[in-house]
């Protein structure tokens, strides 16, 4: 359980470049939730998440992990970083080892585990992101873009975090690679019940999977609700340069033309069923 209390961060404070990146953020992240953090570029998403594992120190306010203030003098922040795993944007840029296997072992080895446990965790993590055995002893630099990114994610998963935070994990990937990674994250979340915070600026990315969406705007939390409630306000979202998932627009257009469809339908199947129902043809199947 993570609690963010009146958190404010100002970069380069007391200089001409001072910039308030986030302002007075309050947030509770309970265990096991799958959360989408969404906002336009520059809205402060990356700044916020770097506070959650203590990489950035708040200008004011606090962060609590399991009830303890993470900036207390006697708080073990190294331990925290293994519990709150943070995958940066373009995580493949941090790969450095000679082969995939050693790179994924880097994290757990830093935790001081013995060799057997390090390797067990690395193997498990690589399997979770769907990297097959033949890639284990390849140089990470010989992999494809999507594979590199999954190896980097495995590098964080191998630390066995309780909370997994991913900063724009789909940035720069083709639609295939994007769906693959999002699918794996969703499967991982469903299987292990791990808390996941998925940062994105695309609604379509997170719409299908998350159970809660936090919308950031100009360094503040603009909205925090279940996805269907958030998407209903797509006019506001558009004003923030975000927009709603494609399906919401279709359903809304149908509704405006007098068809009583459910505007909250997100998947193709749900939309199909809803339209059929509105047309009074419930028993037809695709």
């Amino acid at each position: 359980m993570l609690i963010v209390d009146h958190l404010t961060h100002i970069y380069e404070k007391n200089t001409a470049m001072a910039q308030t990146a986030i302002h007075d953020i309050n947030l509770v992240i309970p265990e096991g939730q799958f959360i989408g953090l969404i906002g336009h570029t520059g809205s402060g998403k990356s700044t916020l998440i770097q506070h959650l594992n203590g990489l950035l120190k708040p200008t004011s306010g606090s962060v609590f992990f399991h009830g303890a203030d993470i900036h207390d003098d006697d708080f073990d922040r190294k331990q925290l970083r293994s519990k709150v795993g943070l995958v940066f944007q373009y995580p493949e840029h941090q790969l450095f080892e000679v082969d995939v296997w050693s790179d994924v072992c880097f994290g757990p080895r830093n935790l001081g585990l013995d060799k057997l446990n390090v390797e067990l965790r690395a193997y498990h993590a690589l399997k979770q992101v769907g990297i097959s055995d033949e890639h284990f002893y390849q140089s990470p630099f010989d992999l494809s873009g999507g594979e590199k990114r999954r190896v980097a994610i495995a590098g964080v998963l191998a630390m066995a975090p309780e909370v997994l935070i991913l900063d724009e994990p789909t940035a720069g990937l083709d639609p295939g690679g994007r769906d693959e990674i999002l699918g794996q994250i969703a499967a991982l979340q469903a299987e292990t019940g791990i808390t996941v915070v998925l940062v994105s600026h695309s609604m379509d990315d997170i719409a299908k999977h998350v159970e809660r969406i936090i919308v950031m705007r100009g360094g503040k939390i603009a909205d925090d609700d279940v996805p269907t409630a958030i998407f209903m306000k797509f006019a506001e979202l558009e004003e923030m340069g975000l927009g709603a998932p494609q399906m919401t627009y279709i359903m809304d257009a149908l509704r405006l033309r007098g068809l009583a469809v459910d505007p909250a339908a997100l998947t193709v199947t749900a939309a199909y069923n809803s339209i059929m129902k509105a047309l009074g043809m419930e028993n037809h199947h695709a």
Partner: protein
Amino acid sequence: MLRNITLGQYYPVDSIIHRLDPRVKLVATLLFIISLFVGRYTGYIVATLFLLTVIKLSKVPLRFIVRGMKAIVFIMLFAVVFNLFLTPGEVAVSFWVLSITWEGIRLAAMLAIRLILLLMGSSVMTLTTTPGNLTDGLEKLMRPLRVIRIPVHEVAMMMSIALRFIPILMEETDKIMKAQIARGADFESGNLIKKAKSLVPLLVPLFISAFRRANDLAMAMEARCYQGGEHRTKMKPLIYRWQDGVAYLLVLAYFAACIVAGRLLF
């Protein structure tokens, strides 16, 4: 973290110094550095006063410049300690096999003062001049060197790219460092060998990223048919204003005063 290194960074405020022609600032910096080596003792007082006045005029907080010095404290300490102990001469203090000589104290003090003034002086230039202006100024000043077939434009272009890359690589270092710390890396504790080893996860990605960026930039320049050398015109050509003339005179006056002060007294 690394953002504390202000060397080579531009500080965006508007001041008389910021608005000066970059050529004036380049020449002034050069004269300032020379003055540190010819004028001595009292000359340093004049130099310090001059520098403080310029900093005041530039509206860059002194605190900001001093903070940037922290990065080189280590190198400075090294040089000072070496001079302190290894200069032969009349012994001032001695213990065990080490001895400090009067000569050593004098040299070490001079060195420290010189280094601080030199670095602060050159920081003022980079803090008040955008990299673009800086290279334009350099290119103009070095133009006469074309006579001896030095590719002035290319050299200036290379310098501007190098300068442009400093903050980018700083930012990149910061990012990679954070990413590795998030994976449990420790850049602080341990002995020297352990510390050196802990740099591998930082340096490898940093080099790769530097090459990737260089490659991207070259590609982007080629895609836009970049061609250096003759016939290029500037969007904002450098033109002297009367303030620049005044500044030149003041700098020359400083230079003379510094040398005279260093020679006459003491």
